[in-house]
């Protein structure tokens, strides 16, 4: 007995299941959310518990420009995926490139902030609890932005080689979920680090 077909073509024709790419990405996002939750909890728990300076209110400035760049990159990747779904590969490439540029600006801004903190304010990961929690939480997020940028760059290379076509729009869509997730995490990090924590 190699099959169990119970001959009901009506069942088969109506049989639609969710896309495995989206489900897999949502699973990854769930796991990543749990990781970030632990880091955020540690950050909040240690607010104001540092035994020595520098303290957040002395050294942190609101990264408004970087935040605007990162959040708008969610919009641009959304446009890119939408263009690809409609078969407009060229427009896809343009929006995809803008997304990379905005993400890169964000990373550069984070780098400048870290340079400022480390070399001008003398705050490192082992200075005090603020340094420990700040660099690990913001660093974990920056690491995720970096991974996202690598993924985006691979997509860009493929687009330049003309290999990204309409039928790949679902993959681009799944990838964009990750990018949106990284943006949402930044909203949480921004609120916790720069608003509550300051």
């Amino acid at each position, binding site marked *: 007995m190699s099959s169990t077909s119970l001959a009901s073509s009506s069942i088969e024709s109506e049989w639609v299941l969710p896309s495995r790419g989206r489900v897999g990405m949502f*699973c990854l996002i769930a796991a990543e959310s749990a990781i970030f939750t632990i880091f955020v909890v540690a950050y909040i728990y240690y607010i104001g518990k540092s035994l020595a300076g520098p303290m957040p209110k002395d050294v942190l400035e609101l990264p408004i420009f970087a935040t605007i760049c990162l959040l708008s990159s969610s919009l641009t990747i959304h446009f890119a995926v939408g263009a690809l779904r409609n078969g407009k590969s060229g427009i896809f490439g343009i929006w995809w490139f803008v997304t990379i540029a905005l993400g890169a600006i964000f990373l550069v801004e984070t780098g400048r902030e870290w340079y400022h903190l480390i070399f001008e304010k003398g705050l490192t990961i082992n200075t005090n609890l603020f340094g420990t929690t700040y660099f690990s939480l913001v660093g974990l997020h920056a690491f995720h932005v970096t991974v996202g940028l690598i993924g985006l760059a691979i997509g860009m290379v493929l687009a330049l080689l003309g290999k990204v076509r309409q039928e790949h729009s679902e993959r681009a869509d799944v990838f964009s979920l990750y990018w949106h997730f990284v943006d949402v995490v930044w909203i949480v990090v921004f609120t916790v680090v720069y608003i509550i924590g300051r």
Partner: protein
Amino acid sequence: MSSESIALNPGDESTRPIGDRLHDWVTTVDHKKLGIMYILYALVFLVIGGIEASIMRIQLIVPHNHFVSPQVFNQMFTMHGTTMIFFVAMPIMFGFGNYLVPLMIGARDMAFPRLNAWSFWLAAFGGLLLYFSFIGGDGLYGAGSAPDVGWFAYAPLTARVFSVGHSTDFWTLGLLVSGIGSIGTAANIVATILCLRCPGMTLGKMPLLAWMNLVMAALVLLAISPLTAAQIMLSLDRYLGAHFFDTQAGGSAVIWMHFFWIFGHPEVYVLVIPAFAFASEIIPVFSRKPIFGYPVMVAATVTIGFVSFTVWAHHMFTVGMNSYANSFFTISTMIVGVPTGIKIFNWIGTMWGGKIQLKTPMLFCIGFLFQFLIAGLTGIMLAVAPFDWQLGNSYFVVAHFHYVIVGAILFALFGAFYYWFPKMSGRMYNETLGKWHFWLFLIGFHLTFDFMHIPGLLGMPRRIYTYEPGRGWDTWNLIITIGVLFQAAGILVFVGNLLWSRLRGPACTTDPWDAWTLEWSTSSPPPEYNFATIPVVRSRRPLWDIKHPEDPDWKYE
């Protein structure tokens, strides 16, 4: 599917050179081969972890024993716990999940076959990293030393000043790496179950094993990740001088406990829910009745999943918390008893009035039922904070959680081994040897773990490497160690039975148990593509429908 692949005869396998076959196994992305590799890899670590336990029991057989040094004893309980949880129980559950889930939902493979292989090799690499510490744990300081900080590695024991060398780093990295593999496997199981079910298999018609693996995978995603995060923090503390768990700089040792147990308690359910899944498949088949209360079983499983995230600090009553926290975690822990109690009633309800066949898998499942009940009862006792203040960190606790892990999880696992061995190997195991295994292991288990409660009640703390005579602990410890002999004998029979049956056992048919789920509709062992044509199901017992066209299940569901 191409007709070429159907023509491929599995009998050709044995004539190919061994190098080719090994290459196939190393490079495979087939869920069945990966499942078997997970299981074999876990069995190797089961033997290693068992040897570590035996070393501890030999050391404790009489007072003032000098079998091993205190340092080695510390390494043994650390390695035993870490190995058994992370490199035996988890991979073996993933192995069965990998093997069975696609077959039971009528799919040809997991949703992401390459991710599956990647996850397996990460898990395997994590185990190697942990055991490499025996050689490289001291780094430049000496010959090597295994981690000795306990399996939950409380701060500040793990701080650089108290744990010199690299043994703790190997522990951290091993768990970090295998944890990432676990997240990959869990995502894969969820995607497989949600996206690859065969036509007609709605969520309400899935086998309970698939349901329970879905809940288990969801727990892995949400519970292993906090451990991963905590391990990253510990690495930052140890390598970059961060202060997460450094009390000298204002950090907190207690927050490590919270992070660890937020992982640690759901982890118990990650392991026991697949054991529930085995029982839920095996008990109906050997009672010749469909499972009693299917929707309630699903609801109870999902409830356990949710509640398991609210109970973690019952591991920390003795650490000292305020009365609100104590009350909350006492109550939430007791609430877990409700859905698990419902499950026990449902399994008994399935057996009630059935034509029970006492084959080896069923024997192990009956053992599971009774022992899980007792484990649950001591769990309820320990959930009461004042009771726990008396007995926390005593051998009573050790006896309790071994009752869960050995008495419930391992017994159900042995049942699963015997039940699916014919499907995986194409050969029948030896029933007599199976029964020997069951009785030897049952006697050994009860000798060891029933009597282990008593020195706990008499005040014997866990993790001591020796004790003084005259405290009333001596006889009990002797009996406990004698029980280990019976368990080891049982394991030897088990391994011998598996090896002998694999090589010499009689060939078995497609469906030796007259069972009802889809894995029994394809050949034993299944071909690489599982099903020549994708099945279509209309009820929870598709094979019953085929065998009994005059009275199919779908008329009643």
